[in-house]
């Protein structure tokens, strides 16, 4: 029985598991090849901060791809919005919070403008957003024309991409050298995760749904606890949780909640799964399209802020190729080009896989030419794996 149980589990969730396995596998290889440098606290912390701004875009892109579109314009838009934030603070003397708010609002507006030709006029997303790509690239060059790179001297703003959460007990009396608040948060996360899983399992059982056998459930819980514990331990060994990671976690929680628990999430998946059926079920496909592109714009604003903050400046080339990194991350994360399938958590893992490859290969000093080839191969492998397993999934 046990064997068939595991096999069934593997078959039904192969895509999710494969992604985690691939991530662990890739990380393992880099850990060995760099003699441990890769999994040092410092590097992992660095990797997560690098992943942050792409992961944020990948979350938005996943929703866009779920409703059968995609968005080329977000890379330079994020660069442009980052530059606007810099100009607002440096040139117009805005306080940092106001500059951030401005950029987020502009992001939403830009997203809605992108949605207009797509939702209202039926213009293919590729063309509409390619136009956006060109326009925002030009706009970025235009606003940085006189100044070139704009240095941002604002401490608060720069902390978003480089700072860490403060510690509650900055003393070495207890667990020396570790970031205590991070450890505490890790513990809370693990407890919360297990509690939710237990409640979920009980609910499912009450409705006679299939659940994991008790042994497998325990194995899964132990595994997840170990993963959360390990990540927490590694981060606590450096500076603790960075603000970037905190922002990312908040975004993932909010988006995952929206997609899985709310009417809006249902409608987004319905529009992606079968737009005609959704329309005939009283769902406005246009409205959903505007909302999803609006959310993409908002997240592009977040990405712009994160990136400018990380560099502590806005550059003339900010955001170059981010859109393609985000699209690749979303696909590695399991979103389906046929629409209606894709998870927010998948996008994060996809972004991690993608950025791990970059980070690891940089550590190894791999030539950039080879880096591109390997990233391309991983993307192709992920999508091929998707297509072949989703055929087998029709059990």
């Amino acid at each position, binding site marked *: 029985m046990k064997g068939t149980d595991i096999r069934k589990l593997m078959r039904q969730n192969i895509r999710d598991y494969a992604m985690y396995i691939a991530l662990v596998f890739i990380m393992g290889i880099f850990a060995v090849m760099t003699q441990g440098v890769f999994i040092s606290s410092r590097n992992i912390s660095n990797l997560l901060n690098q992943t942050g701004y792409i992961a944020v875009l990948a979350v938005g892109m996943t929703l866009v791809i779920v409703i059968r579109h995609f968005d080329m314009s977000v890379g330079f838009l994020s660069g442009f919005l980052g530059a606007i934030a810099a100009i607002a603070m440096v040139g117009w003397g805005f306080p940092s919070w106001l500059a951030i708010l401005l950029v987020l609002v502009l992001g939403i507006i830009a997203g809605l403008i992108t949605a207009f030709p797509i939702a209202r006029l039926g213009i293919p997303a590729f063309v509409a957003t390619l136009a956006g790509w060109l326009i925002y690239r030009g706009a970025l060059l235009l606003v940085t024309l006189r100044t070139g790179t704009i240095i941002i001297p604002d401490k608060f703003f720069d902390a978003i991409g480089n700072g860490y959460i403060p510690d509650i007990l900055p003393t070495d009396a207890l667990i020396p050298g570790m970031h205590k608040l991070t450890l505490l948060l890790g513990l809370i996360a693990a407890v919360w995760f297990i509690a939710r899983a237990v409640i979920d399992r009980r*609910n499912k059982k009450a409705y006679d749904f299939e659940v994991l056998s008790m042994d497998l459930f325990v194995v899964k819980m132990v595994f997840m606890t170990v993963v959360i514990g390990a990540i927490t331990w590694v981060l606590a060994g450096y500076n603790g949780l960075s603000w970037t990671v905190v922002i990312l976690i908040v975004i993932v929680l909010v988006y995952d909640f929206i997609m899985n628990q*709310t009417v809006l999430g249902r409608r987004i998946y319905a529009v992606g799964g*079968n737009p005609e*059926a959704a329309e*005939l079920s*009283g*769902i*406005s496909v246009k409205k959903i399209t505007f909302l999803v592109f609006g959310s993409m714009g908002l997240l592009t604003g977040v990405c712009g802020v994160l990136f400018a903050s990380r560099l502590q400046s806005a550059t003339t080339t900010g955001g170059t190729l981010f859109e393609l990194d985000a699209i690749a991350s979303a696909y590695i994360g399991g979103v389906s080009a046929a629409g209606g*399938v894709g998870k927010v958590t998948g996008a994060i893992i996809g972004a991690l896989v993608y950025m791990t490859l970059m980070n690891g290969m940089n550590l190894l000093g791999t030539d950039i030419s080879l880096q591109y080839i390997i990233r391309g191969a991983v993307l192709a492998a992920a999508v091929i794996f998707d297509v072949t397993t989703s055929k087998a999934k029709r059990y």
Partner: protein
Amino acid sequence: MNPTILEMRKITKTFPGVMALSDVTFSVRQGEIHGLVGENGAGKSTLMKVLSGVYPHGSYSGDIVLDGAVQEFRGIADSEKVGIAIIYQELALVPDLSVYENILLGNEIKRGITIDWNATIKKATEMLKKVRLDLNPATKIRELSVGKRQLIEIAKALSRDVKLLILDEPTAALNEDDCENLLEIIKGLRDSGVTCVLISHKLKEVIKIADTVTVLRDGKTICTLDAHKGEVAEGVIIKHMVGREIDNIYPRRTSAVSDEIVLEAKNWQAYSPNEGRNILKGIDFKLRKGEIVGFAGLMGSGRTELAKSIFGNPDGYAITGELFVNGKKRRFANPKEAIAAGIAYATEDRKGNGLILIQDVKQNITLANISSLAQRGVVDKNAEIKVANEYKTALSIKTPSIAQLVVNLSGGNQQKVSVAKWLFVKPDILILDEPTRGIDVGAKYEIYTIMNRLVEQGMSIIMISSELPEVLGMSDRVYVIASGKMVGELPVAEATQEKIMSLATNY
């Protein structure tokens, strides 16, 4: 008498669970116009797909004999090579290419590796003459009417030295003048030696020009009638077409229809900008509380378009006319408004635009009314499971769990999910478009029982159906729609299969 050019012997073709053709024999003589008639689903299209190689040799049993030689087509290219050409209802022209490019498409006249455009234009002009079209061959297809496009298709077939020309519902989308013209041209082709097979629902046309008529019913050849012996007459054909036994037993219902009118359309017209024609030409009907009204008619008669135009008009037709819901004049801008007004529409194409196949049973059932299960936008998943389980039991949906993906269910159970979805919006008026298409007898009976229960509870149902026994067995009243017009209204007591078919084919 001319020799036989084509003989299809004992053709049997099965699909999983269905025998589409069983021992069909079909023979066509040289130089005749042969009408092929039958109800929707009688097997005409399947037979022609076997003949043209769409279903390759080996996927059916029986022999195709052309000019005395047995043919084994592996694809359409093979049948084209020996001179068989089929012109489908949906035309296969490239709208942005010119007339001459289309006529020689796939059959280009080459000089070396380049196309000889002068020879192409010359040949195209000759072909246009044969179909009596006087137009500039450089015209783009997009600029032509449907009637002219139909003729271009024929010209295209003629350019390939066709021996046997098969026309599938060529006049369905044409106006009267274009129909006349087309029939004349078909006669002209026959006189010049091209053998034609004409598949048509319009019996008048068939009777007018066919030399021989073969009737198919339920995948079998019923009879072949010879016009020159005076065997071809409308009554005879209809009798053979509908002669099906009423093999399903229909559950009885006891409730009485009230006098209250819940839905009424007056002079309802719709123009489709995509197709560039009027698809509904002034329709009037009434639906009473607690009533099942059957909308009968042939495929393409405009019944689905009528339902959609009422149900929020998602295809963007230009509509004129009046619609009354519970006595109030209404017009719905989108399906959402129609649902809010208590109307539900379960589509004809379950898989295409009815269900979300990659989602599970429970999500499909709750889709159209998910807001009712949510508080401040957050879905109460326990309540959702409860609702889904209630409908699963009430409609006896056979699925291991409501978490099963809909794509894995049988057709009958998918249909029940679709019905459940619309019952959950608690409508007053339910439009069911081909509710039992493609599902087995047991599941059909269950659907009928559900329908009876609903009208007994005071719901009103419009049932669009191409199956006449079902229309007669379930309806209180029957409307017959043909070519976008309401051509008849019959109380069920006076309706017979023959009467309905005669109305539906007489336009």
